């Protein structure tokens, strides 16, 4: 029956992450942004919350409690703290979840136990390509079968943590269909290029990666001969990003709300004015609405149903929502919104990225 209440485990989990975001992330996120690095201890503490081990199957050493809805709740709470830190803490998901969803039994047995270790394995994924008309369903990077090997060629960008990765899950087009391949980072022909200079998420290092005739064993194709259901992976990615956008938007809304109640002009808090109060009412409503759209998509995925229309509709809407909410938060702060001493300008820069972040997170 229709219900929008968290269960006990979900409440405990979101409270734990909320405390981490509030007491740890919010203390250092600005320095991390300015310095372009997240402190190791913060990452470790994030990993120790234990999301992935909980989601991994029991025979791989996990608790077998994978749930997209719960994952969405986690992403929202993390991203309330800071988006770049979230993407970095959750980076192991980029391989673990596609493997869980689409891997062969042999691949799962080989890889998934690594995600239940004390420290996460050094793995990342490469989906995005440096082109204005980038479409995840129509990749320019190609994979050609050659005997027992695949030959990969193309250019990838926004590859998180590529500099320290042992393995990169590279998405490439095989006969026009998007497939995924486990590529050792030291493969001949694979070059980790320059670190991307982005508008936001400065503390998440992402890189350009080029592949020129990189040969890998055919067994490294995710899902084996049949390959992957790419829509499924992309839909899970969109839930993660949608939930993160909701977390970011909520942060912006709450900050602007609290500011508007404290900032006194003409003898009373600016929140006493409808022009400000109505903006806040819209922000609160739009955040709630976006969250419900994210949950619905997540729930449908948990039911094992195709959610491609839902995920697309939700993601395009949430991308717009997070920009509007962040922009209004900045507007309410006035000049302070534009100053880097305050968080709102950072949220606006990060919010803009969601339309380009496909594949940077997955749940």
């Amino acid at each position: 029956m229709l219900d929008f209440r968290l269960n006990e485990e979900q409440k405990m989990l979101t409270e734990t992450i909320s405390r981490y975001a509030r007491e740890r992330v919010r203390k250092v996120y600005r320095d991390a942004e300015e310095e372009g690095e997240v402190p190791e201890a913060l990452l470790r503490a994030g990993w120790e919350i234990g999301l992935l081990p909980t989601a991994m199957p029991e025979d791989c050493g996990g608790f077998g409690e994978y749930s997209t809805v719960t994952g969405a709740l986690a992403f929202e709470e993390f991203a309330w703290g800071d988006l770049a830190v979230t993407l970095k803490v959750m980076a192991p998901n980029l391989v673990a979840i596609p493997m869980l969803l689409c891997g062969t039994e042999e691949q799962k047995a080989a890889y998934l136990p690594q995600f239940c270790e004390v420290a996460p394995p050094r793995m990342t994924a490469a989906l995005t390509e440096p082109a204005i008309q980038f479409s995840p369903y129509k990749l320019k990077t190609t994979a050609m079968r050659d005997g027992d090997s695949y030959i990969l060629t193309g250019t990838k960008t926004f590859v998180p943590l590529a500099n320290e990765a042992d393995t990169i899950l590279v998405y490439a087009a095989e006969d026009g269909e998007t497939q995924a391949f486990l590529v050792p980072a030291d493969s001949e022909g694979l070059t980790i290029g320059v670190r991307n200079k982005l508008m936001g998420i400065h503390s998440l290092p992402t890189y350009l990666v080029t592949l020129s005739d990189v040969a890998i064993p055919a067994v490294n194709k995710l899902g084996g001969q049949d390959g992957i259901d790419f829509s499924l992976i992309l839909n899970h990615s969109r839930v993660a990003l949608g939930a993160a956008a909701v977390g970011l938007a909520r942060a912006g809304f709450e900050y602007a709300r609290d500011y508007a109640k404290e900032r006194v002009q003409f003898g009373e808090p600016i929140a006493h004015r409808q022009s400000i109060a109505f903006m806040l009412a819209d922000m609160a409503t739009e955040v709630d609405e976006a969250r419900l759209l994210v949950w619905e998509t997540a729930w449908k995925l948990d039911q094992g149903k195709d959610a491609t229309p839902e995920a697309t509709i939700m993601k395009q809407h949430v991308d717009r929502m997070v920009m509007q909410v962040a922009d209004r938060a900045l507007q309410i702060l006035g000049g302070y919104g534009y100053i880097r001493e305050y968080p709102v300008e950072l949220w606006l820069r990060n919010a803009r990225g969601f339309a380009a972040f496909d594949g940077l997170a997955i749940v």
Partner: protein
Amino acid sequence: MISFEIPEFIQNQMTMIRMVAEQAMRPYSRQLDENEHERPQAFVQMTWPFTQQMVKSALKPLMAQSNGNGSNGKTKPQREGPDYSMLSFIMMIEQLSWGDAGQYLCLPHPMLGGAAVDSAGTPEQRVRFLKKFTEGDPKWGAMAITEPGAGSDNSAMRTTAILDPETNEWVLNGEKIFITNGALALRESDGLCVVWATVDQKAGRAGIKSFVVEGNTPGVTIAKQEHKLGIRASDTVALHFDNARIPYENVLGDQEVRRVESRTGFQGAMKTFDASRPAVAASAIGIARAALEFTKDKLAEAGIVIDYTKSLHELTAVERDVIEMEARYKGAWLLTLRATAQMAHGESNRLEASMCKYRAGDAVTWITQKSVELLGPMGYSREWLAEKWMRDAKINDIYEGTKQINQLIVARSILGYSRRELK
């Protein structure tokens, strides 16, 4: 536990309601729009048996209770698990409004009057006033709150109720406007209208109480039947009260509330809105879905089918519009379902009820306007229903609290402000 599952029996009910919408509503939509004040006979005849059953099952626990010994009839029946009837009702409204929002409002049912009796009345009053909706000829319920000088600010109402101690009757005087189903409830059937009036003008909203006026009460006249932009099948009237006398027992609430000096009556009106706002939102959503489905069907006939795997660059402007229509339709519907689920689980939903109401009104207004736009000259033509839905839709930005009033309620709630702090 987060779930979007609609129980199967409710889904089955909806299949039936959809049949009603397709057979008894859609074929008459245009005719009833062109001939304002004509009644939707087919719809009324087809739905009256259903609505009688609905009211009957809602009253059943109350009637069992008042028959039982030792009960004072005041305690609420203990409920186990969620109350499915609320969800079923909201989904029915959505489906009927998909059929035709104007006709839906003519549902022979206590409607808003019933909601007021339910939230402000005692169990005894609920049985006494609503029982007639389970028998005989079709009947309607209405609620009269708005006045020429009191719209959103309903505490400014001037309609008075004075107790005549000689006869122990309330004497009502004043004028009420924009009453949905006023004529159907009071002149064309033996229904009822809940009238909000002040027993003490100086006391402002604290002096306001609600009174049940039954069909054919002397002193009550239909002063005017309105001509409207849309929902023309719906009966909207002004009522004039000229020394209309009603029994003392017809003031809603327990003995405490009934006392002239009690100050709790207005809360009843506001509580009614917690239930009625999701209902209005559901009606808005029904129109939105009608427009959206129709637009997608017609676009498909013209060879435009949405491919959800296309990237932003590959989508045409029309396709992007359709996707945005779908998002706003679905988002508003989910907000409505959330407010409904809260009621079903016995939780407070004042904030969420206002959120879904204003968001749904906003969404349906935009979606239906978009629909007319995307359908080009055919959208503007009265041959199709798109232009009618656009006119019907706009009422949802207005009644049961304008968009702005609901924004104000949301704003106060999230800011923790009183009426004084945020005017």
